[in-house]
C-alpha cells in the first residue's frame, strides 16, 4: 500500500476545500481500503467524510433526505424507510454482510467500484484501472459482467444493490464540489463505459455527495429481487427493482424497472416500461416487454445466461406485482 496522508473533515465545505488532485474521500472504507491494499487505488491523501454531520434521515415535506454518511444498516432498519420505501430497505439488506453494512455509507455504496476480477488485480491489464491497457475480460472471464450498454473498452458492471433501488425510485443525488452544488437524478449518476471506462460516474474531481433525496414513493406495488448462486453475501448475478401500478381496468398505469448486474450503471429498462404503460398487465405483455428490452442486449459467450435470466426475472417479478 502506498503511504498516504489522512485528515478528517469537520464539514462538507471543508472536505471540498481539502480536495486536491490525488485526494480521495473516505467513507466506511469497505471498498476503498480494500482497493488500496490491492494497489488499485493509490491516493496520496484521504479526507475522511464518514463522520460529517450528514448522518441523518429526515423527512422534508413529502420527501425523505438521507445523509451521505448514513450507514447502510441504519438506512435499512429506519422505520420510515421500511414503511415508505420497503424496496430500498430490501435492496440494502441483500447487499454484502451485516458487518460490512454496519460501516458502509450511502455515498460509498453508490461509488463502490466494479468487482471485475481484472480490475482488482494490478498485475493484469484493465482499461478501467489503466486506460489504454486493454480489456481482457472480453476474451476471458466476463461471467458476471454486462449485457447492456458495454463498449469495446469495458464490459464491467456496477455492483451496488442500493443504486438499483434508487434508480427505480428516481432518487436525487445531492452533490457539492469545487464547481458548486448540483442535483443528479438517478439513474443518471453512473455512466456507460464508452471510450472512458475509467470514469464510473458523471461526478467531477472533488465532487462530494452530501445526500440522497427520495421523492414520494411511487404509486403501485414495489419489490426488489436479487439473484445469486449463494444465498447470502454475494453480489447479484442480476437484480431487479420494479414498480407496477395497475388500474382497476387492468391497464398498466405506471411501471418502472431497474436492473442490476447487467450494465456499467443501474439499468432502467425503458423500452420494457414504455411497452407496458397503457397496455394490459398480462404475462404475455410482460414477456413481450422483456423481449423488447433484451433486443438491445449484447451478451458475450460466458454471460449469455443473463439474457434468459433477465427475461424470466422481469416477467416473474411483474407477474408477482400484478397479482
Amino acid at each position: 500500500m502506498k503511504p498516504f496522508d489522512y485528515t478528517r473533515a469537520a464539514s462538507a465545505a471543508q472536505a471540498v476545500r481539502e480536495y486536491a488532485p490525488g485526494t480521495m474521500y473516505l467513507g466506511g472504507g469497505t471498498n476503498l481500503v480494500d482497493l488500496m491494499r490491492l494497489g488499485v487505488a493509490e491516493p496520496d491523501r484521504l479526507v475522511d467524510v464518514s463522520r460529517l454531520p450528514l448522518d441523518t434521515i429526515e423527512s422534508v415535506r413529502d420527501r425523505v433526505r438521507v445523509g451521505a454518511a448514513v450507514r447502510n444498516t441504519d438506512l435499512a432498519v429506519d422505520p420510515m424507510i421500511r414503511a415508505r420505501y420497503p424496496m430500498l430497505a430490501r435492496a440494502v439488506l441483500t447487499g454484502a454482510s451485516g458487518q460490512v453494512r454496519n460501516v458502509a455509507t450511502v455515498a460509498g455504496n453508490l461509488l463502490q467500484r466494479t468487482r471485475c476480477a481484472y480490475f482488482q488485480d494490478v498485475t493484469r491489464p484493465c482499461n478501467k484501472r489503466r486506460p489504454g491497457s486493454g480489456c481482457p475480460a472480453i476474451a476471458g472471464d466476463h461471467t458476471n459482467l454486462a449485457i447492456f450498454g458495454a463498449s469495446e473498452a469495458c464490459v464491467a458492471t456496477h455492483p451496488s444493490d442500493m443504486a438499483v433501488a434508487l434508480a427505480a425510485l428516481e432518487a436525487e443525488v445531492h452533490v457539492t464540489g469545487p464547481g458548486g452544488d448540483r442535483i443528479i437524478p438517478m439513474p443518471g449518476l453512473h455512466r456507460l463505459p464508452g471510450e472512458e471506462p475509467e470514469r464510473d460516474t458523471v461526478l467531477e474531481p472533488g465532487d462530494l455527495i452530501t445526500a440522497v433525496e427520495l421523492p414520494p414513493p411511487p404509486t403501485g406495488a414495489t419489490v426488489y429481487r436479487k439473484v445469486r448462486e449463494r444465498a447470502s453475501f454475494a453480489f447479484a448475478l442480476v437484480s431487479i427493482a420494479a414498480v407496477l401500478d395497475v388500474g382497476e381496468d387492468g391497464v398498466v398505469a405506471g411501471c418502472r424497472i431497474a436492473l442490476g448486474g447487467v450494465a456499467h450503471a443501474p439499468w432502467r429498462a425503458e423500452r420494457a416500461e414504455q411497452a407496458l404503460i397503457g397496455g394490459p398487465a398480462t404475462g404475455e405483455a410482460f414477456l413481450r416487454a422483456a423481449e423488447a428490452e433484451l433486443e438491445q442486449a449484447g451478451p458475450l459467450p460466458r454471460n449469455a445466461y443473463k439474457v434468459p435470466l433477465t427475461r424470466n426475472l422481469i416477467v416473474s417479478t411483474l407477474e408477482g406485482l400484478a397479482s
Partner: protein
Amino acid sequence: MNRIEGRVKVTGLATYAAEYPVENVTYAFPVQSQIAKGRVRHVDAQAALAMPGVLTVLSGEDPPPLASGAGELALFQSREVAYRGQIVAAVVADTYENARAAAAVVRVDYDPDDHDVSLRADHPGLYKPDHVNPAYPTDTEKGDIEAGLARAAAVVDVTYETPVLHNNPMEPHAALASWDDEGRLLVYDTAQGTTLSRNTLAKVFGLPKERVRVVSRHVGGGFGSKGTTRPQAVLAAMAARAVGRPVKLVLTRQQMYDVTGYRTPTIQRLRIGADAEGRLTALEHVAYEQTSTLEEFAEQTATPTRIMYAAPALRTAHRLVRLDVATPSWMRAPGECPGMYALESALDELAYALGMDPVELRIVNEPETEPDRGLPFSSRNLVGCLREGAHRFGWEQRDPAPGVRREGEWLIGTGVAASTYPARRSPSKARAVVQDDGDVLVQVAAADIGTGARTALTRIAAEALGLAPERVHVELGDSDLPEAPVAGGSMGTASWGSAVVRACEELKSDGREGTADTTEEVQGDAAFSRHAFGAQFAEVRVSSVTGEVRVSRLLGVFAAGRIVDAKLARSQFIGGMTMGMGMGLMEETLTDEEFGGFLRRDLAQYHVPACADVLDVEAVWLDERDSELNPMASKGIGEIGIVGTAAAIGNAVYHATGHRVRELPITPGKILMF
C-alpha cells in the same frame, strides 16, 4: 466432548504460527512471477533496497544455497518460471508494511515463452504417470469392457468435469523462522504435521533432523493445503538465515491461491453397462488431470471406482498433462471426492436408463469382496447406509419422474449418492507419563488443524487408562515430541490413537511411563480392503425463473467404524458435507488462459457456502464393529463427508429439473442455458 482448546480459541488466546512473540523479528514479503512460462532475465532490487526499513532482497540473482534443487520448495534455485504467481524474489524488512511496499517495486525482467494452462482430454501432452497419489497403480483392468458394454441392456457413456478448487483455511499459511547461535532452525509453521515439516525442512536446508524444530500448536484449518511443507516455511527460514534475525511471513489470501496447492481440474469419462436387472456388465472410469512442470502430482481420481461396485469388466485409468500451472495437491478427499462425483452421477444416469431406483441399483451391485484386488473387506456397510438413509429421508415415497414437483416457481427434487474413503493408518510414536500431581501427560507430534484431534486423543488416552478425561493432558504440534504422521488421508486419529493406546497400556503396566512405536504393529496389519462408506441424500429447490439452487435438506449416513466422539464426529461429517455443497453449487477457481495463473483469488469471488445456504444438514452413523482396524476400532472421518455430496445434489437437480449438468459447479447460468 467439548473441544479442549475451545476456550482459548474463542477468547483469542490460542497462539497461531504468526503470533508467537519473538524479539527482533523482521518480515518477508514474496514477489511473484507475472508470466506463466519463461525465464527470469534479471531481478533489479535497487529501488527496493533503497526503501525504508529494507534489509535484503532475495532472488535468483544470488541464490541462497539450498540442499535440494528442484520442485516447489527450491526457491530461487532456477531462473525458469513454471507458472504465474510463482515466487521469484522476496523482500525482508523491519515491518510488514515496509516489506510489502518494497516488494511492489522489485523489478523483474523476463524472457517469456508461450504458455499452456488449459486441460483438455485430447491434449497431446497427456501421459501415464508411474503411480497416482499416494502410491496406487495408475491403471487397472480386468475383464472385457467392450464385450460387457455390448451385452448390456443399458449403457451410459458420459463425461463429467470438475474445476480447479481451492482449500480456504481461515488461517493463512504462515511461518516464523529463527536460527540460533548453534545453527539450529526453529520454525513456527502452519503445518498439518510437524514431523513431516521438520523432515522436509531438514532436507531442503541439508541439516540433520535434530537441528530442526517445527512447532504448530494450533492450526486454523488446512484440508490438505498445509499437509506438505509450503514455500512460506522455506522462505522464512532462508530469509532468517540471510538477515541473521527471525523472519515472519504470512501469505495473503491471493498468494494462498497461487502457492499452496489446489485440487486439479478433472475431465472424467465413464462408460457403464448393466443388464436388465441392473447388474453391471462393464464399468470404465478414465480421468484426465493436470500437474505442473515442477513436480508431478497425480490425483487418484478413479481409485474409488476400483472398490465400489461388482462388475465383471472393470477398468480405471489416469492420464496427466504437465501444464504451465502451479502444482496441484491435496484437498479434502483428493481422488475420492471428484472421482465419486463422476461415478455417482453416472450411476444415477444409469438408473434412469434402466428405469430402476438408484438406491436399489447400488444395492444390486454390492460386491462380496473388493472388486479390484479380490480382498475381503474388513467391514462394509454401504447397503446399511443406503437403507437407513432411504428410510430416514422418506425415499420410499419418491416418484422418480424428473421435473414434475413444483411449489410456485420452485422445482423440487431429491438425489442420492454413495460415499467412501479408505481407512488407513501409518506408524506413529507416542509417550505417556504420570506427572507429579498424578495426572497423565500424553505426547505425540500429532496435529490439531481444527478437527478436534487434541480432544479425541484425550478421550482415547483416558479410556485406555481408565481415567477421567480431565486428568489427561495431550501435548501435540511440536516436532520435538514423539514422531507422528500428518493429519491427512483421514488417518490421523487411527495412527496417533494406536500409538497413544499402546503407550498408555505400557504406562499401566509400568506404573509411571509408557512409550510406543507402532511401526511393526502397522506393518503386521492383515490384508483387508479397509474403507468407510456412506450414503448421502439431498433435496434441492431449483427456481424455474432464475436457475438458483437451494439445498433444502442434506442427510448423510455413514459407517465408519466406532465413532470415538459423537460431537467431534458430527462436526467433521457436516463440515465435509457443507464443503461438498460448495463444490456442487458454487466453488470454482478460474484459470486465466491469456495470462496464466488464477482469477477470483479471494473469498468475495471464490464462494463457499454461507450460513444461509446451510439449511438442514444432518449426519448420522451406523454402529459399525470392525476389529481389524486399530485399538479404537475406528475409521477416519475427516474426508468422507465431502465424498458424494456434489453427486447427490447434482442428481437431485436432475430430478427437480430434468437437466443433467455435467460440469461443476451447477450454477444458475448452466441451468438456465439448458
